[in-house]
C-alpha cells in the first residue's frame, strides 16, 4: 500500500488497482444479492398488489418502496392506514418497529472501515434484515464499500421493480405464485445459518435461543415486534456462553 515517494506510476497503478477491486467487489456484491433479489420480488409484488387494492395510489405505493424500503414497515403502514389509525400512531409504530436497524447498522459498522463519509451514508440506506445477514456472513473480517453497494443496490432494485409490477399488474399476477415463493428468503437465511451452526456449538445455541425467544415474544407482541428483544437477549446469552468457555465462536 505504501508508495515510493514521488513515484507517479506507483500512484496511478494504485488508483487503477483500487478501481479494479471496486468493480470486482461490486460484482461480488451483486452476485451475493441474487437470492435476496429473488426473494424480495414476489414479496414486493404482494405489497404492490395490497397497497394498490387498499386504495393507495400507484405513485404512493412506489414512493413507499423507494423511500421507506422496509417490508415489515410498509405492510404495517398499509394495514394501519386501512384501519384508519391516527397519523401520529402510524409514524410512531413504524419507527419503533424499525428500531432494529440501529442494532443491525451498529453490528455491521464493526466490520466496515470508513474512509469517506458520503459513500458510507449512501450505502447504509440499503441495510435491511436480509442484506445485513448476507454481509455479516462474509468470510473476510472487513466488508468493502464496493461489495455493499452491489449487494444493497441489487436488493433495492428488486424491491422497487416488484412493487411497480404488483401495482401495475394488480389483476394479472396469480396470488398463488407469490405465496409459494415467500419461503425463498427463509431458505436463504437457513442456507447461511446452518453451516455456521455446524461449525460452532455457541452459534447453534445463540440461533436457537433467538428463535425460541422470538416465538415467545411474538405471542403477546405479534410478529415483527418480537425480533428486536429476541435478538438482543439471545446475543447477550451468546456473549455469556463465550465468557464461560473462554473462547470465541
Amino acid at each position: 500500500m505504501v508508495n515510493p515517494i514521488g513515484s507517479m506510476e506507483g500512484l496511478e497503478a494504485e488508483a487503477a488497482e483500487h478501481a479494479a477491486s471496486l468493480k470486482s467487489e461490486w460484482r461480488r456484491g451483486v452476485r451475493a444479492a441474487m437470492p435476496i433479489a429473488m426473494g424480495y420480488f414476489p414479496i414486493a409484488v404482494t405489497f404492490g398488489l395490497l397497497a394498490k387494492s387498499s386504495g393507495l395510489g400507484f405513485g404512493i405505493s412506489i414512493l413507499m418502496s423507494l423511500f421507506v424500503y422496509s417490508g415489515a414497515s410498509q405492510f404495517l403502514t398499509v394495514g394501519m392506514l386501512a384501519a384508519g389509525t391516527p397519523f401520529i400512531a402510524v409514524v410512531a409504530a413504524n419507527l419503533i418497529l424499525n428500531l432494529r436497524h440501529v442494532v443491525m447498522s451498529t453490528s455491521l459498522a464493526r466490520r466496515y472501515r470508513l474512509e469517506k463519509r458520503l459513500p458510507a451514508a449512501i450505502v447504509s440506506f440499503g441495510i435491511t434484515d436480509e442484506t445485513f445477514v448476507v454481509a455479516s456472513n462474509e468470510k473476510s473480517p472487513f466488508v468493502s464499500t464496493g461489495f455493499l453497494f452491489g449487494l444493497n443496490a441489487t436488493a433495492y432494485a428488486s424491491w422497487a421493480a416488484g412493487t411497480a409490477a404488483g401495482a401495475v399488474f394488480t389483476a394479472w399476477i396469480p396470488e398463488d405464485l407469490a405465496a409459494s415463493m415467500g419461503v425463498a428468503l427463509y431458505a436463504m437465511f437457513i442456507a447461511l445459518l446452518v453451516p455456521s451452526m455446524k461449525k460452532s456449538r455457541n452459534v447453534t445455541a445463540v440461533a436457537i435461543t433467538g428463535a425460541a425467544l422470538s416465538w415467545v415474544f411474538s405471542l403477546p407482541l405479534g410478529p415483527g415486534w418480537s425480533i428486536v428483544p429476541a435478538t438482543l437477549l439471545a446475543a447477550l446469552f451468546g456473549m455469556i456462553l463465550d465468557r464461560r468457555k473462554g473462547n470465541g465462536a
Partner: protein
Amino acid sequence: MTVLWIILLIGIGTYLMRMVPFVLVSNLRLPAWLDRYLQKIPYAAMGALIFPGILHADTSGIWPGLFGGIAAAAAILLTRNIWVTVLVAIFAAAGTKLFY
C-alpha cells in the same frame, strides 16, 4: 397529502436509524465486550427472523413453510449451494400444498 407526510417521516426516521450508527460506529474502537456482543447479533437475528416467521411464509398455512425450511436445512448440508437450497425449499413448500 397526509399519507405523503407519513411516508416522509417514516422514511427519514428509518434512514437515520440505518445511517447514523453505521457512519459513527465504523470509526470507533469499541470495548472488547461490546465487540463480542455485536459479533453475536447476526446469529441471534437469523434465529429470530427464521422462527416463527417461516411458519407464515405461505399464506395457506404453517406446513409449506415448515417443510420448506426442513428441506432447506437438508439441502444446504448436502449440497452447500445456496441456489439449490432456495429452489429445493420453494418446491418443497409448493409440493406440500398438493397434500391439502
